[in-house]
């Protein structure tokens, strides 16, 4: 059964359903009596609501009701929260402004929800929403974080004077300043990390169903973590006690982080279902998604990196301003702090680091985790700085990195993280070889002969996955623990259900989790089902984000399997009158080692349920639950190399080569891992060359459709050259690190390093659109 176990390229079990249009997404759900919601949203970035008049709307055909924020508040539904407490360096807690699910007196971004219309059809709901008359008093708006901190900027929340949410730091400012003062060389750079919209293929949707007889709610929703959604809706938003609230996240068409958070719409549809007495469904359209899905990135940073005379880094100083948008989304405070600044040591042995981060309210969509969440920002900053330093110092970028690599493990960085394993040079060497780095000069001459500019750039990234040790994150302010759960349920005839708290929304868990079980027991992969995404079926779990499902979710499955196997061995030993220690499980059988005695797996399962002949005192059944709390983060790392050819006439960048050499530790399914890396790099290329959320100065979103928001398409991408190095993760039983975000983390700096190499200077920000590259080449314009 090695063909289906760990390491095998098993085709995805779930793909038949997805590729034949048989997936069941939230919007596919229909229940009797179901009605449709449409939200009245603010057309202004900042305004007072003087009055909401829904009289005309309520009289429109098909309309069941129009409900607003005052009613929601009167019913005791709570405000949205940010679940990670950060303290400023002066010891004060972060200054969180109130986020009402439906705005009560003030709107703070274009798209802020004001009222919900429930009607017989979505068209009628939308017609009626247009008839709701809202009397606004417009207020000045601010969209850029730096501008929001300036004196005299519009004040967005009374709780946060000057729009400053927190002013946080990590590391040792004095040691860093001293090292900079005595350095042989200091590289200074300003880094902009562009704001992105996540764009999962399936827009957000929710269906709220209130059952009067049971006083019970069911919420279908596009969530990456249905249990967390239930916990938060229950504990903080007072929707219903947990036992009266079932959350189901069925097939979910991509998330990239944007479906971690609990948004207003889920809460409001549940509440509206009770108010109106009908099930209420809402499905976002694409422009609504641009207007309301949490955005990612949006940092402005100043960097100083100090070197000694041997080109060894002696210190790194970072000053970052992060735009969190109009409200603090669920994990927004953690992203530019503990998911960002803790990775600023990169792959390098840096004796002293200091990072200061200010987070800021603006009149824009809330910003939260997006594929990579903090680590792309750290990697872009660090790898652009390293490349710039190499150019300033006149050494090759590879040599500068080699001179500073961490080479012994475990390695304690000055910014919390303790790296457990890695071999950064192995990935660097593999990438340089795959890219034929040595042959670049010749290729550049060929390009020059054609009138093109060629450049090459690298990025050596590290990231932290497998979030996270619960006690550690708890001490840093997290409101939840970040363990994972699994139940392995063996049926009476030996087929198996694995109930996992992880949630698959494109990652392929139904295949990889089954591979783990198939490999361990030697049973066919078809006999294993992975169950996830329903709080009524699955025990409490923490969901999927931060590339944690393999490292944490599967580790929980391993623990549950250990227990199942131990019990199965006891039963088999009893049936074969052998000693428990002599039983081995192989090829779907339990064997007595060194003999030809065996019982098939299904027979042991059956014996456990007939319970006719079990060891004395043993409980019937074969089903075990385990919770796994990781002991550390995991640290995927690698080296990416991009080679570009630029048309100086148009500024167009052609990616002629892209190499990724990744160390993800052990790999469950290479095909799925390659798919994750491909997708991640595509998003990284999107950030580097194409994507950028843009607001005008009044806070109107200019990039509210694909006419203006440039997503990467197949012909924007080269064929990727991938390879894997492997230093197994010592921290979890499978030795896996996680692969879901690396592509998006490692690729942007490699591309911008390549483009700046081609154009010969550093004045370029992402996305490097043709116009920007052309301007960089023709500075007069």
């Amino acid at each position, binding site marked *: 059964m090695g063909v289906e176990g760990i390491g095998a390229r098993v085709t995805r079990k779930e793909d038949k359903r997805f590729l034949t249009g048989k997936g069941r997404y939230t919007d596919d759900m229909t229940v009797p009596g179901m009605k449709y919601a449409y939200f009245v949203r603010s057309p202004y970035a900042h305004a007072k609501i003087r009055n909401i008049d829904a009289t005309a709307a309520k009289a429109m055909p098909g309309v069941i009701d129009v409900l607003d924020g005052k009613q929601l508040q009167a019913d005791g539904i709570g405000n949205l929260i940010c679940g990670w407490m950060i303290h400023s360096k002066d010891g004060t807690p972060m200054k969180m402004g109130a986020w009402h699910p439906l705005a009560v007196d003030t709107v703070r971004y274009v798209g802020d929800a004001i009222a919900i219309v429930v009607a017989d059809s979505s068209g009628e709901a939308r017609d009626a929403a247009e008839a709701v008359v809202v009397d606004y008093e417009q207020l000045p708006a601010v969209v850029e974080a730096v501008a929001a901190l300036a004196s005299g900027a519009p004040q967005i929340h009374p709780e946060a004077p000057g729009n400053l949410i927190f002013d946080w730091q990590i590391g040792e400012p004095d040691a860093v300043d001293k090292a900079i003062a005595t350095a042989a060389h200091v590289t200074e750079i300003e880094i902009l990390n562009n704001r992105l919209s996540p764009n999962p293929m399936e827009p957000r949707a929710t269906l709220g169903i209130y059952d009067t007889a049971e006083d019970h709610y069911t919420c279908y929703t596009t969530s990456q973590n249905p249990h967390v959604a239930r916990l938060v809706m229950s504990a903080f938003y007072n929707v219903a006690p947990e036992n009266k609230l079932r959350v189901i996240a069925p097939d979910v068409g991509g998330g990239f982080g944007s479906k971690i958070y609990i948004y207003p719409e889920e809460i409001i549809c549940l509440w509206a279902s009770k108010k109106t007495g009908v099930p209420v469904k809402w499905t976002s359209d694409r422009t609504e998604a641009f207007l309301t899905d949490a955005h990612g990135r949006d940092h402005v940073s100043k960097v100083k990196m100090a070197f000694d005379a041997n080109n060894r880094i002696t210190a790194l100083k970072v000053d970052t301003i992060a735009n969190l948008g109009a409200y603090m989304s669920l994990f927004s405070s953690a992203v530019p702090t503990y998911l960002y600044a803790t990775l600023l040591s990169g792959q390098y042995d840096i004796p002293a680091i200091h990072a200061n981060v200010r987070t800021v309210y603006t009149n824009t969509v809330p910003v939260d985790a997006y594929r990579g969440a903090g680590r792309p920002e750290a990697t872009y900053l660090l790898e652009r700085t390293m490349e710039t330093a190499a150019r300033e110092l006149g050494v090759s970028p590879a040599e500068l990195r080699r001179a500073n690599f961490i080479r012994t493990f475990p390695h304690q960085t000055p910014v919390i993280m303790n790296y457990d394993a890695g071999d950064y040079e192995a990935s660097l060497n593999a990438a340089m070889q795959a890219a034929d780095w040595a042959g670049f000069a010749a290729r550049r001459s060929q390009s020059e002969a054609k009138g093109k500019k060629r450049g090459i750039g690298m990025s050596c990234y590290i990231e932290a996955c497998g979030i996270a040790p619960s006690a550690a994150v708890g001490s840093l302010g997290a409101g939840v623990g970040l363990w994972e759960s699994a139940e392995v349920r063996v049926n009476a005839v030996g087929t198996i259900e694995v109930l996992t708290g992880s949630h698959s929304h494109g990652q392929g868990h139904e295949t990889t989790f089954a591979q783990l079980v198939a490999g361990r027991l030697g049973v066919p992969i078809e006999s294993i089902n992975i169950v996830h995404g329903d709080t009524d079926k699955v025990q409490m779990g923490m969901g999927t984000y931060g590339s944690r499902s393999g490292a944490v979710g599967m580790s929980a499955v391993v623990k549950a399997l250990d227990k199942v196997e131990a019990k199965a061995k006891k039963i088999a030993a009893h049936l074969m009158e052998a000693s428990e220690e002599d039983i081995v499980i192989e090829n779907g059988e339990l064997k007595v080692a060194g003999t030809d005695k065996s019982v098939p797996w299904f027979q042991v399962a059956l014996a456990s349920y007939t319970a006719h002949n079990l060891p004395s005192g043993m409980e019937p059944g074969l089903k075990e639950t385990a919770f796994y709390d990781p002991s550390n983060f995991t640290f995927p790392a690698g080296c990416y190399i991009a080679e570009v050819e630029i048309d100086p006439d148009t500024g167009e960048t052609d990616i002629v080569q892209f190499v990724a050499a990744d160390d993800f530790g052990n790999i469950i399914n290479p095909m799925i891992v390659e798919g994750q890396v491909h997708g991640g790099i595509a998003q990284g290329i999107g950030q580097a060359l*194409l994507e950028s959320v843009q607001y005008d100065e009044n806070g109107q979103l200019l990039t509210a459709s694909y006419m203006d928001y440039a997503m990467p398409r197949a012909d924007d991408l080269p064929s990727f050259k991938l390879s894997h190095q492997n230093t197994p993760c010592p921290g979890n039983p499978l030795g896996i690190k996680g692969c879901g975000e690396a592509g998006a983390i490692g690729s942007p700096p490699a591309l911008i390093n390549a483009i700046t190499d081609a154009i010969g200077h550093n004045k370029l920000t992402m996305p490097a659109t043709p116009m920007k590259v052309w301007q960089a080449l023709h500075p007069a314009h």
Partner: protein
Amino acid sequence: MYATSYHRASSVEEAVKLKSANEEGKYLSGGMTLIATMKQRLAAPSDLIDLRHISTLRGISIDGRKVTIGAATPHADVAASRELAAICPAICKLAGHIGDPHVRHMGTIGGSIANNDPAADYPAGLLGLGATIVTDRRSIPADDFFIGLFETALEEGEMVTSVTFNAPEKAGYAKFNNPASRFAMTGVFVAKTAGGVRVAVTGAGSSGVFRHPGFEQALGSNWSADALSNVAVDASNLMADMHANAEYRANLVKVMAKRAVASAG
């Protein structure tokens, strides 16, 4: 979507009659622009008069060097026409780079020019070829047809039925895509016609498609990309948006014009 009544016209006469009976109605061709506009609630026609089932509006006919393309002919048919490619490959290439395959199989030449999006490709092609736009009531030279942003010479209720042109001696089209929409951020059509050289620019002008007399003159005396090197492009009448400012567009106008000449067949 607001309520609307759908009519499937079977002849030009019927369609025109339906249109005049429903003042707030609109002709529907490929729907690639109109339906999207309705979904965004930027248009709310009372009636949709579908032209795609009028057989006389669809197809390409070639008589010697005279080409006639029915208004309801989808872009994909123009792109794939071998007969047309034999005498005017540039227009096939232009059609083959509009949007994506879905758009090319639905969107039509009549809908595209009636809409006259300032970043659309066909307006450059037809202006560059010196084509004639035939309607249910008259013939309009391309020079008089494209008036401004989304504005044409069409009168209320007037329907494009076909476009005609004589295949040029040589023609070429070069388009620089808007990175997001892939409409033309600048597209230049050049043609050496019996009446002289014509150069039409789309995607760049602040009032839509325009001819470039400087380029026409230069190419008229020397049909080569190099002939354009010293001709200035004035940025002052060019469009500026978040994707491209006027200076960059001016640069693209020149670069695309040269490429159009170099690729002309």
